[in-house]
């Protein structure tokens, strides 16, 4: 019975990968696909610790430009810690990051690197939609631009519209841009947050389980959006849902807890390979549902 279920899960995962990739190859076309060697972000031997307690250690990982990389693994294995290291969000939560992270040619943790500059080049979308509750839809979308010193009204209007279009939200909200953002549904709020991040024109978009608070229909829309967005930005997606990783990602990085309960990166590679023929036996066990 148990073995049956496992086999079914593995089969449906393989199915997802096939479908996902066929659709992707169509939507993207071969000319826009970047060479896999170019990396938007490189992590070299990165560890994150909180108050002396190591959460995740020695992760070395290249995030390919304009591709979707999924970080998967069970809770507490450091996926989100790695994600938040990329835009220096641990500066505010007291986490310590060691190792080297490069954003293009910028050393993210160099002493003369300004965190604001890093964050204006790396957008982020969080688990729960978090539009600013006191702002209208329009003010939310352009808030990042205003925080970054953009004052030109025409530029704000153009960029706001473009971001909302990119987030597939323009047709829904174009007649009520002055309404409070919190009047939107949960899925729409999350797309608004994606638009807000995109408006600042980031090179990289970090998404921390962006669908975990959404229903399946809203999730499907966000997933479709992720695939479209990867034509323009590099997407890093943390997810618990392996089907989601299989559906939307090009590359997958698997994090698991090591012997001493510290998170480790155990395998990284093209999604088809990680799910289809994993080289690490722990990955094998995880993706087929034996552990985790």
């Amino acid at each position, binding site marked *: 019975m148990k073995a049956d279920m496992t086999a079914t899960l593995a089969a449906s995962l393989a199915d997802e990968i096939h479908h996902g990739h066929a659709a992707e190859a169509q939507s993207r076309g071969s000319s826009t696909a970047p060479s896999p060697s170019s990396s938007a972000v490189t992590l070299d031997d990165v560890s994150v610790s909180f108050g002396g307690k190591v959460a995740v250690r020695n992760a070395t990982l290249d995030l390919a430009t304009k591709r979707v990389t999924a970080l998967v693994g069970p809770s507490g294995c450091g996926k989100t810690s790695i994600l938040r290291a990329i835009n220096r969000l641990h500066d505010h939560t007291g986490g310590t990051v060691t190792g080297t992270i490069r954003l293009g040619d910028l050393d993210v943790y160099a002493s003369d690197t300004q965190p604001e500059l890093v964050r*204006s080049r790396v957008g982020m979308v969080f688990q729960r939609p978090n539009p600013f509750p006191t702002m209208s839809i329009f003010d939310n979308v352009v808030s990042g*631009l205003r925080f970054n*010193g953009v004052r030109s009204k025409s*530029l704000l209007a153009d960029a706001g519209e473009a971001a909302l279009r990119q987030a597939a939200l323009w047709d829904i909200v174009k007649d009520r*841009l002055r309404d409070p953002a919190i009047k939107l549904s949960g899925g729409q709020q999350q797309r608004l947050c994606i638009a807000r991040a995109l408006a*600042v*024109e980031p090179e990289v978009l970090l998404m921390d389980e962006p669908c975990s608070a959404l229903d399946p229909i809203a999730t499907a829309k966000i997933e479709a959006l992720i695939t479209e967005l990867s034509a323009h930005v590099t997407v890093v997606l943390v997810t618990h849902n392996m089907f989601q990783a299989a559906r939307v990602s090009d590359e997958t990085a698997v994090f698991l807890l090591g012997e001493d309960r510290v998170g480790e990166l155990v395998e990284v590679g093209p999604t088809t390979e990680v799910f289809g023929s994993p080289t690490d036996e722990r990955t094998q066990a995880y993706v087929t549902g034996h552990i985790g």
Partner: protein
Amino acid sequence: MTGVPIAIESSRPPLAAVVRRDLVRETARRSLARRRLAGRVATSLCTVALCVSLVPLVALIAYVVSRGLPALSGGFLVHTPTPEGIPGNGIGNAIVGTLVIVGLAMAMAVPVGLAASLFVVERPGRLSGVLRFVANVLTGAPSIAIGVFAYAVFVVNFGYSGLAGSFALAVLMLPIMVRVNEEAMLTVPDDLWEAGLALGSPRARVVRSVVIRSALPGIVTGNLLAMARAIGETAPLIFTIFGSQFFVFRPTSPMSAMPLTIYSNATQAYPDAQQTAWGTALVLMVLVVILSIAARMVAAHLNRKTR
């Protein structure tokens, strides 16, 4: 920040995506130095404001310590007052009086405050709205008015006594307690209420086992801080406890208390009396600090146990 006209239907052709992107990135990069400078200026202003607000506090503590410390010779805490010029002066009777009076006041105010705040939280409606409003107004009531009130209803009928002082302090603390208790109980998430009710328990049982238990750290802290506030109040005692030169443990008799000792000694011309006032002020201040720290420690302990 608001009020930007949104040019949706303008005839102006929108910027090409590439141009717009470069413009946004360039603006962000170029304005960063200015924005960081503005941030640093704001941070320094906040630091200055913090220092300004700390100056009176630190100055007060330093002054009371420097003036009060010489009074704290051996026996100051345990002796009774001596006449002017006679050595061996002390405020033992005032310390005992304060502890008895404030202890009785707590015994009166805490149960009533808890019950009243439960009513406000549990039975939202016109009556609890009125109750909440009255509590808010009374929180700001001048303590001398409370003293006069206690004189009118208590002293006039039963004479001066420590109990009358306790009554006045209880009246002073009650509205504060209702407010802090209500706030503590409102932080208990609705989920917990519903989880308790869904198990078939009566509301009263949910209140006792879940709501009060979860809100306990806040309730204890709030009540102890109300006590710290009451312990230094002078005006309600001036009209009620009369004062005494001896150790008095029976609350139905006139008693002494530290704020009253400070008040009566500080208004005298003799240097010894003024010295006594400073010394008493120091003892009282230390007591309040200890109470505040105790409130935090109790809350932290309860938080560790319940979370």
